[in-house]
């Protein structure tokens, strides 16, 4: 008994270290907006206290410990945005790709234990890097942040029947690169210029933690608490341009120019989140789930590049020819901070086991999520466009029991559809000479997908 307690304590310590000690600030993922896996998406992402498949890697790692057999899941989802400003479709990129993962349960020193992997693999682009002018209108929460891969690995234990604890890491990649250009520039015949360039870039791994706990009050009521860490995805670029400036191919160099540029930006930022969830089964075949997610949007860092430029072109002997106006050093970007407010996002979902047969079961699901826009009204120079989002979802599922002797576990097939409505409203500019001016913004997003889970 003493050994068992020691093992439990050791496992907990390992999990906490894995979740907190190794991580450093890390970026955004599409799962916050569109859910992970068809069951969770259909139930409005209200799943923190009611999840035990691969999607627990996102919703609540503690749920992995509830798994009783090895499961492998694979699915696909597609979210198409129809977002408009002034009635014009801004053609925000769709998000689509594979989702999947596995859950591998077992015993560790007699304690139920599980390992999980979760993956969202976009089939269009793994990551998208954009640093736009801060006055350019952009759908800040839908344009770029959702275009990225998501990978999470978690461990979970169930030290007591009523308690599950889990945690792990999610992984992202940040970009750092440099461009060096050297050579000779002929100002009279640019095509005769000779330049050489060298490019190097690194994708560096960024990790951020998630931990969760689930407490079962009884067979019909459970609560959950989940923490997801903050991360920022950076884009750091350095450029150096050094070379001679001459008049004519055979001309003596007039002068030597040096131009250096350093740009640092946060390409995507995922604020830390705390989820309080509950799951209640008023009758055997019905589950009603409620999650409240606190999102620390006030810590958000806008993806605007901070540019530092140094331009050194000493005048040639005798001064510049009258026909040449040497460039001057551009003014450094003055970044206007984005103002965002913390939000509590409610998620509600329900699942009804509508059909119960010896060989199969059928499920109907529905959910709702309300995301109040965290971005302050854009009355000034910046244009981080966002609107409140009402997400209505529904889905169906089938569980096939012991389908064949090759598959002793269950086979589950789930599908979902989600409609996010962003009511159109006005953005009014306080400065009449604003070059963007007043605009309306709103639209909707369709999200559909399916997931197949095979148990062994």
């Amino acid at each position: 008994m003493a050994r068992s307690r020691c093992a439990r304590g050791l496992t907990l310590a390992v999990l906490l270290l894995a979740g907190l000690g190794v991580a450093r600030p890390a970026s955004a993922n599409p799962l916050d907006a569109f859910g992970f896996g068809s069951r969770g998406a259909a139930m409005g992402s209200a799943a923190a206290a009611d999840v035990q498949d691969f999607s627990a890697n996102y919703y609540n790692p503690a749920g992995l410990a509830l798994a009783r057999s090895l499961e492998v899941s694979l699915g696909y989802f597609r979210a198409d945005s129809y977002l408009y400003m002034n009635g014009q479709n801004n053609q925000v990129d769709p998000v689509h790709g594979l989702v999947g993962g596995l859950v591998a349960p077992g015993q560790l020193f007699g304690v139920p234990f599980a390992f999980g992997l979760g993956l969202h693999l976009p089939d269009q682009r793994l990551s998208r890097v954009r640093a736009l002018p801060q006055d350019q209108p952009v759908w800040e929460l839908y344009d770029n942040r959702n275009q990225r891969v998501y990978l999470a690995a978690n461990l979970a234990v169930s030290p007591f029947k009523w308690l599950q604890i889990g945690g792990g890491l999610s992984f992202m990649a940040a970009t750092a690169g440099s461009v060096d250009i050297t050579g000779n520039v002929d100002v009279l015949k640019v095509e005769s210029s000779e330049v050489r360039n060298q490019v190097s870039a690194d994708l560096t791994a960024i990790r951020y933690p998630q931990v969760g706990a689930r407490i079962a009050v009884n067979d019909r009521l459970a609560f959950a608490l989940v923490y997801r860490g903050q991360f920022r995805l950076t884009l750091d670029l350095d450029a150096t341009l050094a070379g001679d400036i001459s008049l004519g191919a055979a001309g003596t160099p007039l002068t030597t120019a040096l131009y250096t540029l350093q740009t640092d930006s946060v390409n995507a930022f995922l604020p830390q989140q705390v989820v309080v969830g509950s799951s209640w089964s008023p009758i055997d075949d019905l589950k009603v789930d409620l999650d409240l997610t606190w999102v620390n949007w006030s810590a958000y860092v806008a993806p605007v590049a901070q540019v530092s430029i140094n331009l050194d072109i000493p005048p040639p002997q005798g001064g510049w020819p009258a026909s040449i106006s040497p460039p001057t050093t551009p003014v450094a970007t003055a970044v206007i901070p984005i103002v965002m407010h913390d939000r509590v996002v409610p998620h509600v979902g329900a699942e009804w086991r509508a059909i119960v047969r010896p060989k199969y079961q059928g499920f109907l699901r529905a959910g709702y999520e309300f995301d109040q826009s965290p971005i302050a009204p854009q009355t000034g120079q910046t244009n981080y466009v966002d609107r409140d989002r009402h997400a209505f979802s529904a889905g169906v599922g089938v569980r096939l029991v012991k389908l064949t002797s090759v598959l002793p576990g269950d086979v589950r097939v789930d599908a979902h559809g989600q409609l996010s409505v962003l009511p159109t409203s006005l953005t009014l500019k306080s400065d009449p000479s604003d070059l963007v001016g007043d605009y309306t913004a709103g639209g909707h997003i369709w999200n559909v997908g399916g997931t197949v889970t095979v148990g062994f």
Partner: protein
Amino acid sequence: MRASRLWLLGLSCCATLGGSGLGDVGLPTSGVGPFRELVASEVHDAPYVLDNEAPNYREPAVLPGNPGDASSAEVVLYAVAAEPAGATGSRDVIVRTHADDARSFYGTSLDTGHTPPVVLTASAAWEGASVGGPSAVQIGGQIFLYYAAKGGIGLARSPDGVTFAKEPAPVLAPDATVAWETTTPSAPSVAVYPDGQIRMLYAAGDSIGEAASDDGLTWHRLDADPTTPAIDPVLTPGPPAAPGTLEDGEPPPFDTGQVGDPCLAPRTTADGRIQVRVLYTGFIGTPGTTGRASAIGFAARYGDSGPLVRQSGPVFAPGHHEAAPALFEWSGNSMLYVQLDETSTTPPYSAIAAGFAPAQDTLAGPGAYPGGP
């Protein structure tokens, strides 16, 4: 056969690249820049749309060529041209041309054999020798062509935009009681507001003033600041930068010497507010300064009265003494016509060039020159 199909399927799945991202299509804009110069692939003689050494085309004004179709790029352009020296010496006249694509104007230097016809010359004693500063607007089925002359701002009307009948006297003459008008009113720009009001902006001294009319014939000056007893202009030269306030490399304000050549372009915003948009020429040096730099600025206000608020930087500044902006909009595109100094010849001459917004968009190749003006 089956194996080859599978191979092709595998190849099609594995050897494809994801497309490039979007998300910035059809973005909202005030339609007034920033503008970029047209490039060689967009216009026959970039960046010029109407040039010829002898006529020295200047001070463009535009009208939609097809007012009932907001997607049409057909545009009519009036400009000042130098008439060859006659018995009474050279003088400035107003000519007319048009383009079907907003760029290829009848009678420009590459449209050989054609010359934009003269539609207005000075003929009354109050006008002096020349007319200039045209502004064309459609009112009640007629084209009203306002122009600047020695004695003030005149008006000529036409049913077809080619043959004009002048009013016998200036519609806006100098008023000695208006202290800031140290020169005769000139460079008129007239527009009909979305609610039907007719307004005129004009240049005088180093500032821009405003006048109103019910019929386009009788005008009275408006006071931009009713809290003072005097009639005030709607836009004055910008204040110079305070010492030590400019960042390294930051250019000084571009319009501290004079503001002029207003181009009035009212519109209704998405909220139903009237936004009075004004493009203008900003000069760093005061009037009379030789070779002073200029750039095109933007100022605006919400509502139908009061002073204009300026954008801090210019919206078009290629650095060739750009002046006298005129704006034409169609299908979310904005074309800015300005006069530029062409310095490749001696002496330099003026020609009309164009800038385009949204600056990140690219126009298809230019069309053919039209068969008539």
